[in-house]
């Protein structure tokens, strides 16, 4: 599937009757509080610029009220922007007329919702075919395609159940099956897993990652959970008060948090599992006496395990085709784990590192 990227440029969303009049003042620096207190308008999104590359998972993370659900609704224009553009390939979604928009939603996008949004009077199969049904795909064809995806998301044998008969996790599988049956290039997931309990959530994340390996859709995933963001996201954008405050890969966010807000966020993260050796390796391959080779993409935790098992102090990092692309040392790996906490005396670092090392089996 050829997936194009989604480019969001200078997107503003202001809620209120005279929204358009306030774009200028906000651009010139009127604050969210001032806009709300003095003029009774709510600033939803402010100058959003995000490139969502085709074929990857982009996670938009933020706490409630940060505007993340508003943002994802601009991609299929369930919400109209106040100003700015959302380009898919070379079309601006914001300039489509009603019919073009309907076609775009039918053919190019599929969406999964936090509250599932299933049709309660239809069973699992009838829900899954909904997208194809309104496109006018024949009954036999659409049901065959839906059955395939119902099976893939692990709902085989439940086709005739009604949503109310299913648990939350299973209902969301129906939501996912419905979106996948639509066979669209863009998959929008609006806090799709937030309503699920933690174990099922991890389970569903695995389902998505496994499917994505072969589907290579352009996935936009909204979440308030940093662990979820780091696990799923090829790229992550962090939103606060309607503004993007950092975007980059998981390692970028964890290793180089843009401000204190994000620093506070990433503090509790298990860095060893999130950061991959590629992010910390040095391009030189001078120190590889041990002959230990670690494939790129390995998590730091696993790399440390291999290093300590081999009793080596450094290893070469090799790409998929066996090419040496750099090297990592034990101390580099440990340094990335403990980070540089502002205000922490330098002397404390080795102690933490020693603890980290003794924790490795």
């Amino acid at each position: 599937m050829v997936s194009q990227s989604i480019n969001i440029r200078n997107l503003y969303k202001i809620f209120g009757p005279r929204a358009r009049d306030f774009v200028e003042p906000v651009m010139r620096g009127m604050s969210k509080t001032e806009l709300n207190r003095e003029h009774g308008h709510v600033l939803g999104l402010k100058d959003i610029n995000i490139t969502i590359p085709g074929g990857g998972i982009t996670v938009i993370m933020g706490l409630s009220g940060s505007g993340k659900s508003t943002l994802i609704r601009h991609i299929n224009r369930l919400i109209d922007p106040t100003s700015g553009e959302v380009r898919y390939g070379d079309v601006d979604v914001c300039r489509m007329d009603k019919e073009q928009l309907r076609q775009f939603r039918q053919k190019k996008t599929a969406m999964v919702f936090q509250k599932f949004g299933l049709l309660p009077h239809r069973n699992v199969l009838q829900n899954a075919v909904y997208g194809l049904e309104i496109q006018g795909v024949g009954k036999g064809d659409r049901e065959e395609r839906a059955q395939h995806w119902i099976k893939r998301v692990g709902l085989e044998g439940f086709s005739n159940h009604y949503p109310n008969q299913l648990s939350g996790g299973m209902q969301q599988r129906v939501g996912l099956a419905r979106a996948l049956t639509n066979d669209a290039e863009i998959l929008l997931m609006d806090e799709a897993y937030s309503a699920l309990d933690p174990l099922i959530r991890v389970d569903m994340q695995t389902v998505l990652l496994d499917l994505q390996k072969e589907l290579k859709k352009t996935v936009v995933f909204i979440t308030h959970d940093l662990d979820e963001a780091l696990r799923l996201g090829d790229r992550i954008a962090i939103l606060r008060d309607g503004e993007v405050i950092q975007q980059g890969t998981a390692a970028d966010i964890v290793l180089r948090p843009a401000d204190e807000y994000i620093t506070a966020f990433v503090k509790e993260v298990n860095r060893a599992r999130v950061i991959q050796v590629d992010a910390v390796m040095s391009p030189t391959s001078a120190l590889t006496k041990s002959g230990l080779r670690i494939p790129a993409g390995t998590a730091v935790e696993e790399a440390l395990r291999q290093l300590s098992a081999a009793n080596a102090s450094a290893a070469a990092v090799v790409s998929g085709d066996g090419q040496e692309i750099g090297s990592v040392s034990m101390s580099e790996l440990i340094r990335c784990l403990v980070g540089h906490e502002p205000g922490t005396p330098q002397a404390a670092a080795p102690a933490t590192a020693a603890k980290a090392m003794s924790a490795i089996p």
Partner: protein
Amino acid sequence: MDWLWKFPSMDEDMLRALKKSVDEGFRAFTRGYGSGIENLFSPLQSFLIWAERLMTGMPWPLVIALIGAIAWLATRSWRIVIGCIVTLLLIGYFDMWEDTMKTVSMIFVCTVLSIAIGIPIGIAMSRSDRLQRIVNPILDVMQTMPSFVYLIPVVMLLGIGRVPGVIAVVIYALPPMIRLTNLGIRMVDRDVLEAADAFGSSSWQKLRNVQLPLALPTIMAGINQTIMMALAMVVIASMIGVQGLGQPVLKAIANQYFTLGVFNGLAIVGIAIIFDRISQAYGLRLQKHREVVHG
């Protein structure tokens, strides 16, 4: 200080002139367009006569079997089916079969008309707050205006007979149909509608696939209310010549025939209960998918 104790009302002559001119205007309208309007309603007249012939012309065991079958299909409950059959047998045994069939046929026509008019208006109303603001007070008038008052112009226009009777009944029975259709559609979960939008539904597809099916139980409650209100109008309709169970009741009132009144009154109650139980149980069965909640 006289004006404090006596309301400063309109001058008597002026008031008389006003009433007279309105009355004369309407009379002129009746003379001018009465027959045209009557022709407009002639399809309704034929529909009414057809329905009445159908009900009274059928052999009674067939009618009972038919109503029993409908009850079974709609409710799947033997208790309701048996209740319906026993009620109908009792009505027949007390020699009210013919009148009951006439009433049932009229109620049937009124219900069909109310549904045909009410659902589209209800849908339109659910889509526009402005229309809702306009229609709601009209519905209030239709429901609270004493029916005798709007019988006067209807009778002046169309004379006495079935058609004016049906119009009077429909005016009274239509509001719940409109209101509950509107309410049912407005109550549909916004998340589900958003999902339908996100998959690119047109507004007609949204109405057909999401809004109407989810509003159906509420719409069924509206149909139920419409039937009940139509039955409540049977006696009043009989005053302008609608045949059926209302006429014996009217006769009983005029001549103080206590037993005749009670019998026919009970027959009305009997068919009201039959219609109510069948339509309610059907409405409930439409919601079956909501009941089975994951444990």
